[in-house]
Structure formats: structure tokens, C-alpha cells
């Protein structure tokens, strides 16, 4: 799941990037309104973590611009200014959630997962398909009730496929979801992860649609 973090404090930005990365998110980090605007125009995100006080303006402006473009990317406002009126103003401006500083990293991760999930129209956190079950909160997976050991990236690929079973997910989409800007993507990285996943899940789960991408195998295939 790819998210954008907008925060001007360098320590906070590093903490969010690393911390949310540990929670399974692929994070892009920017520290100004201008950079946030360009990132949001260039790339689709599953969620945005937005600080309000930025050097070149207010995070609310970024939010307003995003909503003006009819984008419904979920936005979580993260700010030290967390009086009730501030929260109300933020939520009314189109934010999906509001977290005051200081916060608990795990709670923040859960809230980001929640708004991202709702952005995709799902209420339940758990992903299920046939005998497979994914728990995004703990990054744990089971097959036929037995725990499955997956790396973070394998987990991401599988959850992306399981979010919309049967729909083809392109290699570019997978790369977008797996790698932030700063990360070097090797040309066959996605294939390597798919290969490992197939080995763990067994045959007949992930189908390759030649020249397009991947999808979960259809019922009875």
C-alpha cells in the first residue's frame, strides 16, 4: 500500500517513513505544500498523511486542492494543533481522519489502514479469498488455517491481488505499490517476488496474464 507523507520536521518525517514502512506501507516523503502538490498530481496514493503547518503554507491548502480535483484519496491530518475547532475545520475541509501529535505509531498505522480500506469501499480489515486469509494489521497470513510466512513485499503483492480477486494487476501497479521514489527497482524484482509467493502458496493461485500482469486464478481453474 503506497502512501504519501507530508511533514516538515525532519525527525518526524524520518520517523513516519521508517515507522509506517515497518507497518507494511510503501512511503513517499515530502516536506512542503509544493512538493506534496506535485507528488499527488504525479502519482495515485492509497492514503496521505498530511501535516498542517508547512513552511510554504497550510496542509489544508493541499487538501483543498486535492478535493478540488475531485480526488477522493483518503487523507489523515497529523498536527500539533489539535484543539476541537482545529479538528472540526480539518474534517470539514475533506480530511478522513485527524490525529494530534504526539501519537502512537501503531495507532497511526491502523488509522491509515482504516482510511485506505474505506477508500477502496471495504469495511473489514481482513482479506479473504478461498482458503487464504490476510491480516494487514499484523502482516500475518494463513492458508487453510495454517500460518504462512511472507515477506513484507510478498504480503503487499498478495493483498493487492486479493483486494480485487480476478482483476488483472499490472506489473507497473505492483511496482508502484511496492517501491517508493527513493528505492531502486530492479527490472525483474516483481517476477522474483511472484516466484517466491507461488512457491509458498502452491500452484493454481496466481495466474500470469501474458504481457499484461497477474491475477488470482478464477474459481475452479
Amino acid at each position, binding site marked *: 500500500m503506497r502512501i504519501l507523507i507530508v511533514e516538515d520536521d525532519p525527525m518526524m518525517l*524520518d*520517523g513516519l517513513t*521508517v515507522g509506517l514502512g515497518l507497518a507494511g506501507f510503501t512511503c513517499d516523503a515530502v516536506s*512542503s505544500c509544493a512538493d506534496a502538490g506535485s507528488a499527488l498530481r504525479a502519482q495515485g496514493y492509497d492514503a496521505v498523511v498530511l501535516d498542517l503547518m508547512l513552511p510554504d503554507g497550510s496542509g489544508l491548502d493541499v487538501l483543498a486542492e486535492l478535493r478540488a480535483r475531485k480526488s477522493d484519496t483518503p487523507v489523515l491530518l497529523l498536527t500539533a494543533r489539535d484543539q476541537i475547532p482545529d479538528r472540526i475545520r480539518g474534517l470539514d475541509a475533506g480530511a478522513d481522519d485527524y490525529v494530534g*501529535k*504526539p501519537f*502512537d505509531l*501503531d495507532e497511526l498505522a491502523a488509522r491509515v489502514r482504516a482510511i485506505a480500506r474505506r477508500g477502496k469501499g471495504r469495511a473489514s480489515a481482513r482479506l479473504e479469498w478461498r482458503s487464504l486469509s490476510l491480516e494487514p494489521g499484523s502482516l500475518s497470513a494463513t492458508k487453510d488455517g495454517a500460518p504462512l510466512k511472507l515477506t513484507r513485499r510478498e504480503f503487499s503483492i498478495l493483498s493487492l491481488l486479493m483486494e480485487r480477486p480476478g482483476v488483472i494487476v499490472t506489473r507497473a501497479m505492483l511496482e508502484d505499490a511496492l517501491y517508493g521514489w527513493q528505492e531502486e527497482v530492479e527490472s525483474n524484482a516483481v517476477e522474483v517476488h511472484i516466484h517466491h509467493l507461488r512457491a509458498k502458496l502452491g500452484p493454481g493461485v496466481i495466474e500470469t496474464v501474458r504481457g499484461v500482469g497477474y491475477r488470482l486464478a478464477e474459481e475452479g481453474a
Partner: protein
Amino acid sequence: MTSLRARLLLILITGTAAVWLSAMAWIFLSTRAEVEEVLDARLMEAARMVNSLISERRQEPGGGLSSKDTLFGEFERQPRAYERQLSCQIWSLDGALVGRSESAPQIRLSTAEAGFSLSDIDGETWRVFTVENPELNVRVMVGDNLRIRDGLVGDVIKGMLLPTVLVLPVMIGLIWLSVRQGLSPLNTVAAHLASRRARDLRPVPDGKLPREVAPLVGALNGLFKRVEDARERERSFTAFAAHELKTPLAGLKTQAQIALASDDRDVHANALRQISSGVDRTARLVKQLLDLAALEANDAGPKLASGDPAALVRSVASALEPLARSREVSLSVTVPDAPLRVTMEPHFLELALRNLVENAVLHAPTGGEASCELRRAPDGRVSLHVRDDGPGIAEAELPLATERFFRGSNRSALGSGLGLAIVELAMERMGGALRLVNRTPHGLDASLTFANRGEDTAR
């Protein structure tokens, strides 16, 4: 004297008493003079009356001085009390007592031959009028005891004293009432203030106040306003400070959670490094907040003195030398040889200078330069320039740069947004100023100028 009412009462009562006493003294003196005059006239009249009586008796058959009892009886049967107090003696010209009234002393009343005289008889003073009658070869003397005269004057005074004694308390009461009435606007204001809560700093209503009380209430309201402003400043400062501390605290917490959650050694080490530098940054922020509070706290104004800033410039620069070295920035100091004098408060100037030099060192690129130059213009004005060859401040941000917690787009990682606010406040409080100018091709020139007073004292 701390009570206005007691003071007014004292002044009014003393004043009234003084007026009364001088009136009494005046009345006493004039009454005495009047009484003297009247009594002297009576003495004279009585003496002449006796003289004419004895002259008449002389012509009557069987008359003569032998019938003096009748004569003096008549004299002493005078109707008025005062006249009974008169004493009469008749002496022959050769010095023998011919007769005297009952109340008259044995001793000759006066040695004077005629007219008024004063004499001492048995320790008492007598006023005597003497008439000489050469036909009968006698002197008639009529006298009265001055004690009696004084008694008369005393009666007049006593007669005046009684009403005074009765009226004075009434008067004091009236004074007390009018003072109380006159001071009631003060009481109203006092009662209004007394009924307030400690935090109520609304102005006292001053619509119907008398002219004398209005300035006091005006001053009071002015004070309220200043206290309220100071409190508001404090409140917003506290809110601002608390808010600014939240972000680094949130960062520290996040990094600590990462360190706890991750087994990866690199992630671990990075988180700890972040925590360490985060604590440094937070400590600096706290220190700057305290500096700012210290600059603001002293409402009466700093104790300004004339001094030479050169030593201060050198000591600040040498204190920041390690920071400059760690960032590979060369820090130079230029100070003129001749001694300078400026108006300053050493702590304030040090605070301003430290923040400026620190800023210069932090914004200069690695291998760059920061400089500190103290100079005296030909017109005698002293200025202090702190320069760096960093990115400078975006022109649009220059006016905002000294605002509290404003951090421009070219900020350093350590910046709190307070440094320039501190510099400006410190200079303002010393009567000086801070000026920020971008250098070409890049960098910042921050200059401090001082109040003119410094040059005056130097002359």
C-alpha cells in the same frame, strides 16, 4: 498618614479649631479693651460723683465729712453689682484718711495726685481714679480691683465658650459627614474593585466620576489593560511554546517506537541517531524559549549601559568555534583597534549575537564562511555585521523571518524559528535594531545597529 479621610478630617478640624481660637483671642482682646474703657469711665464718673456729693454736703447745715456713713452707704447702695465692687477713699491733702467705703482697703489706694493710676495693694492690682478737691482740702479716690475686671472679661469669654463647646462636636460631625460624602466616589470605585474576581481585568466604568477621581480610575484602567496584554502575550506564548514542543516530542516518540519495534540493526541505529539529534534540537528549542521569556520578562526595561562590544563579539565567536569546525565552516572575527562605545545590555547583546552567529554557521555550506564584523562608520555609528555564504532568505520571507516560529524554506535542520525573533527582541529592548539583507550572489548579511545614546556618552 495613609487614610485620605483621616487626613481630610484632621486638616478640616485643625483648620476650624484654629479659626475658632483666633476668633476667641480677638474677641477676648477687644472685649477687654472695651471693658477697660467703660470701667475707666465709670471710675471717673464715680469719683466725680463722690466729689460733688461731698461738696454739696459741705453747704448743707450739719453736713460735712462727719456724715460720711450716709455718703458711703449711698455709694454702696448703687444698684449694679459692679458698682458695689467699687472702693472709695477720701484723703486729706496732708495725708490723713478722712473716710472710706466699706469695701475699700485701709491702705491708700493710690499715690497719684490726680487722674488714673495703677497700684499694688496686698498683692492685687487696682485701677484708681483720683480727684483733687482743693476747696475741701481732700482727694477722692475711686478704684476697682483688676481681678474683678478680669472676672468680667472672663464672663464674656465663658459666655462664648459654652456655645462653642456645644457647637464644635456638631461641626466635627458635619465635617465628617461631608468628607464621607465627598469621598464616596472613591468608595464606589473601591467597592467595585473589591467585588471583582482576580482574573477580571475589565476596565472600571468611568462614566460619572468626578474630575478628581477620573485620572486615578483612568490610570487604573490603563494598568488593567497593560496587565491584560501581558497576560495575553504570556498565554499565547505558552500555547505557542507547548505547540512547538509537541512536534519534536512526537518525533522522539515515533523514533523510540521504531527502535523498540524493529530488529533490523540499521533501522535501530538510525532511530537512535534521530532520537539523539532530536533531543539536542528540543533542548535548543527549550533554551531559546527560555531566552525569549527572559527578554520579555523584564517589563521595566533592561539596565542599559555604555560599553565596548568587541570583547563580547570575540567571546561569542570563540564559543561557537567548535560548532563551526564540526561543520567545516570558517568563522572569522573583525574588530577595529580603537575602542568603541555603544548602548547595550551585555546579556541581551550576547543573546542576539550568539543566535546570529549560530544561524550563520548553520546556514553556511560545508567548507563555507561565516564572518562577524564590528565596525564604525565615518559618522561614528557602530554596527555589527554577521554574514554567511549560505542560501540567504527568500525575499518574500524576509519580512516574516523575525516572526516567532517562522521557519523559512531555506531553514537549517536545527532551526526552531525562534533565533531571529530573539535577536530582534533583544535589540529592540536595547533601543537598537536588526536588519536582514541578502548578499550577492548568495548568503545573508544580518546587521545590528545600536541606540544613539551610546555615541553621546562616548563624546
